Each structure stands twice: as C-alpha cells, then as structure tokens.
C-alpha cells in the first residue's frame, strides 16, 4: 500500500517562480519515506538469493564481510568486494543502479568528504598528481583515500543489501535470536511502528490542509505551518507513548519483554555461512600474497 502523498507528490501547485513550498517538500519527503519502507518490505518478501536466507545468517554475514573488508589492504581486492555486492544485489532482484546510487550518494560521499584531506600533500606527502599548492593531491594520498572509500562502500553496500532483502520484522527476530535483549528489540519495534503512525498523521494533516488551499501560501506561512505541526506531532507522540504504556500494562507488562523466536536455519543457510567464511579467508589470502604491502 503506497501512501497517497507518494503519488501526488509532483501534482501539487508550485509556489512563486515554480519553487515548491517548504510544507510541500516536507510532505513529499514524508510520503516518499513511507513509500520506501513499504516498498522495501515488498522487495524483502520477494524472490532472490539474499531473501531466501535465514535473517540470522544474513546478520552474521555482515560481521564476516565487515571484518574482511577492514583487513583488506589492496585496492583491486576492495574493488572486487564492491563488485561482489553489486552482483549479490542483481542476484537478489535489486536494481543495481538504484542500489549503487544509494550507496555512493550516502556512504560513498560521506567517506569521500571524511578522507579528502588525507589525499593532500599536507597530510600525505609524496609524488604530486594534481598540483594545488599545500592541498595538492599526491599519489599515496589518493591511494589511501580510494582504499577508505572502497572499503566503506563495500561494507555499507553489503549492510544495505541485507536490510533491503530482509523484512523489518525478521531483522528484529534475528536480533532477538542472536542475543540482543528483548526489551531493546521491543523498543526498536515500537519506534518503527510509532514513526510510521506519526508519518501517516503528518501525511493526513498535510492532505487536509492541501484540500482547503487555493494557493501554496507564502514561505513564511509554510514555515510556520511546518513548525506548528512539528509541535503538534511531538505532543501527540508523547500522548501515544502514555497510551501504549497503558495498553502494555493492561496485558500484564511487568518490565520484561519475553518473546518467542521461531527461526530455523536450513542446509542452504549453513552452506552460505561456510561459503562466506571460506571466501573471506580466500580474499584475505589473495590480498596478503598477490598484493603484499
């Protein structure tokens, strides 16, 4: 079920000069966020290599992959790991383009900004590739930055793939099965539910306003409306929290949150895990022997 706002996002009137209002942009962002969560659940429930695996195995795989990516030194091997995540995405029915855009534009960009100074002669001296005075890009500096960015992209990409191919409910079950305290898991579940519920509230508020407006209003009015609604949602959130606590008490809540986790690993899951560990050892071996530092 895709929220109405996701469909009408581009159909609304534009403000002066064709610039969409802050209220509209905020509402669009909310609509798209809800749609993304719901679409993600659809993708996670569909066919695919990663979808078929036990969520605990997938979570454990993140750890194996992250450790492997952290210990690899050579750029070519890191690039192979990045390509491997793209291959897994394709095998899981995930659009490689949208997957790559998402990883590059978030984790990749962040890593690039964080390590940009280390590519300069100021931090890493060496032969200059691009002369920019004290901020000249050096060959060893560029290699260090490229390694870090590739490592982050590989790790974040695999993590994102696990999240995209696992239903939220299964992820939480897996966390519980792997020993995360039930109270923490329950809090995560309630947080997700509360966010979705509040997003729907905001969506409805916006639609109610939109249906009674003939123009987009001034930027000042729109900012005022957004701030006012934020305050309303905050109050509503606190009231809902009280009500939820009452509902928990009514069903006997006494401070602990025991749960029944019913996950069974199959031969395929064990095979995946064994292959993952073996690949990790192989990758680290190649990294150390073929590309020694």
């Amino acid at each position, binding site marked *: *079920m895709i929220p109405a706002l996701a469909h009408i996002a581009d159909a609304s009137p534009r403000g002066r000069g064709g610039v969409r209002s802050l209220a509209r942009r905020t509402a669009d962002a909310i609509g798209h966020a809800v749609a993304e969560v719901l679409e993600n659940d659809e993708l996670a429930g569909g066919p695919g290599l990663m979808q078929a695996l036990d969520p605990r195995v997938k979570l454990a795989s993140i750890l194996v992959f992250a450790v492997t990516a952290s210990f690899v030194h050579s750029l070519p091997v890191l690039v192979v790991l990045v390509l491997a995540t793209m291959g897994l995405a394709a095998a899981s029915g995930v659009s490689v383009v949208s997957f790559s855009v998402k990883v590059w534009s978030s984790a990749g960009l962040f890593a690039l900004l964080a390590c940009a100074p280390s590519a300069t002669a100021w931090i890493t001296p060496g032969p200059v590739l691009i002369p920019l005075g004290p901020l000249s890009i050096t060959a060893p500096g560029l290699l260090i930055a490229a390694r870090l960015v590739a490592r982050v992209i590989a790790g974040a990409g695999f993590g994102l793939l696990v999240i995209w191919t696992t239903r939220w409910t299964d992820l939480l079950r897996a966390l519980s099965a792997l020993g995360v305290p039930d109270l923490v898991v329950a809090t995560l*579940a309630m947080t997700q*539910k509360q966010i*979705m519920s509040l997003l729907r509230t905001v969506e409805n508020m916006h639609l109610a306003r939109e249906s009674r407006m003939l123009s987009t209003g001034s930027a000042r009015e729109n900012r005022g409306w957004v701030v006012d609604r934020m305050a309303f949602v905050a109050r509503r959130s606190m009231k809902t929290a009280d*009500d939820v606590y009452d509902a928990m008490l009514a*069903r*006997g809540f*006494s401070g602990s949150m025991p749960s*029944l986790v019913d996950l069974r690993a199959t031969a395929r899951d064990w095979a995946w895990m064994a292959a993952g560990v073996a690949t990790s050892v192989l990758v680290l071996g190649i990294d150390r022997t073929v590309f020694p530092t």
Partner: protein
Amino acid sequence: MTAEFVLSGAGHSYGPAIRALDGIDLTVEAGEHVAVVGANGSGKSTLLKMLDGLAFCTSGTITAAGRPLTEEALEDPAFRREFRSRVGFVFQDADVQLFCNTVFDELAFGPLQLGLDHEDVRSRVAEVAASLRIERLLDRAPYTLSGGEKKRVAIASVLTMRPQVLLMDEPTNALDPRSQVWLLDVLDEWKRAGRTVVIATHDLSAAAESCDRMIVLSEEHRVVADGTPEEVLAQRDLLLGVNLIHQHSHRHGADRHVHPHAHEHEHA
C-alpha cells in the same frame, strides 16, 4: 456470588480542574453484558480504565472480585497476575494497542507476560488466530494492516489471555459493516460462555443488540439511567438531555417531520 466490580461513590479527576467521573455507584455482576453509553467527554473511557486498573479513584472506592482495586493492590505481583489474566481491555484506538513487531508477537505478548510455557503460548496463538481468521496476518507488522484487521488483531491479542471479563472501548469504531456483524457475533458467543463484558460506546444500536443492561452517563459525568436497553432507549427526553440523540427535521413533499435521531459515529 461476588460481584465482578463494585463502585461506590467513585470519581476521577485529571488534575484539580478536570473532572472525568463523579459519584458513580455501580455494580457489575459476573456474566453480565453491560453497555456504558454517553456523549463525548462524559467519562466512558475513564470508567473503563478504572475498571481495568489503569486509572484510579480520586474519590470513592472500587472493588474487583471483592478486592479493592488500587494502585497499591496492583503492586502485589500475585494480585496483578490474577487480575490481568482475568480482565482484558480492548482499546478504542487499535494503533495504541498494537506495539509488537509482528501480529504473532502481539498475540503472544499477554500469555508470555503471564509466564505461560512457550508451547502453551503457541497453541493459544494458533487457536485464537484460527477462530478470528487472522492466521494469514501472523507474520505481518501491525502497522501494515487495515483498520478492520487491526481491530481483529487487537481483540485477538486480549483473547489469548483467556479473560473472564472483557472491557471494550468503542468496539465498533472504524469497523466496516461486515466486521461489525462479526464483532456482535463474538460478543454473543461470550454471552453464551457466561463471560462478563462491559463496552463503552455511543453506538446505541450496537449497544442494544449486544448488551442486556445499559448505563447512561451524563455530560456532568454521573450515572443518570441504568436498566435494560429497552427501558433506557424508551426515555427519549433523557437521551436528548445527555446528547446521545438530537432532534432531526426533514420534509417529505409538503410534510415536515421532526423526530429524535441517533448517531452511530463520533461527532467531530
């Protein structure tokens, strides 16, 4: 036989200025099906919360199965366990009541809190899910359900605790006609099983159909009528006075009719 609930001069205030209930004298016998009706803000929901030990008397007293129902009493784990397993509460807003990861977890929450063994919990969940025909929802996250499905799951989440007393706040709210009929059938089954039900509603037709006793709360938060649905619904002046029905006029050609009119939904 001990009465299920006895309220003597019971009142509740939210702070010094906001009075929600005032001087309520009421006895609910075991096996009774009682509808509490009243306009918005008359105190129906507060009364249910008091019966469930979620709000407490600020004046007067209330007992449940012969024991005082107070905050201190519910701090006793043995009493709390016994009381919570005996009295179930279905909230008006199903979204509030559904706070677990999946529908399965939701149905298992109450029995697990009661300390039942896992096999027993699983069998209760399967039994209730089958009886309410929600098996296909068990793996879903509650926030992805429709309004009617949420209501079913909310009711199921209480039924797995096998309560003897069921409190329901506006049970027919947000239900489509088919689900309303289903709910009335469920209430009918409980009546035959001898379980106690107290519903708060201003859906007069649902209240009359599912209950054998009707209690009317006034806008001054007091009980102003207590009798069978037939007796209460016959008092049109009283129902007009407490804002449960209103005068409605319309025309048939040249003829103008004026008659009382009841609403089966919340006034905004």
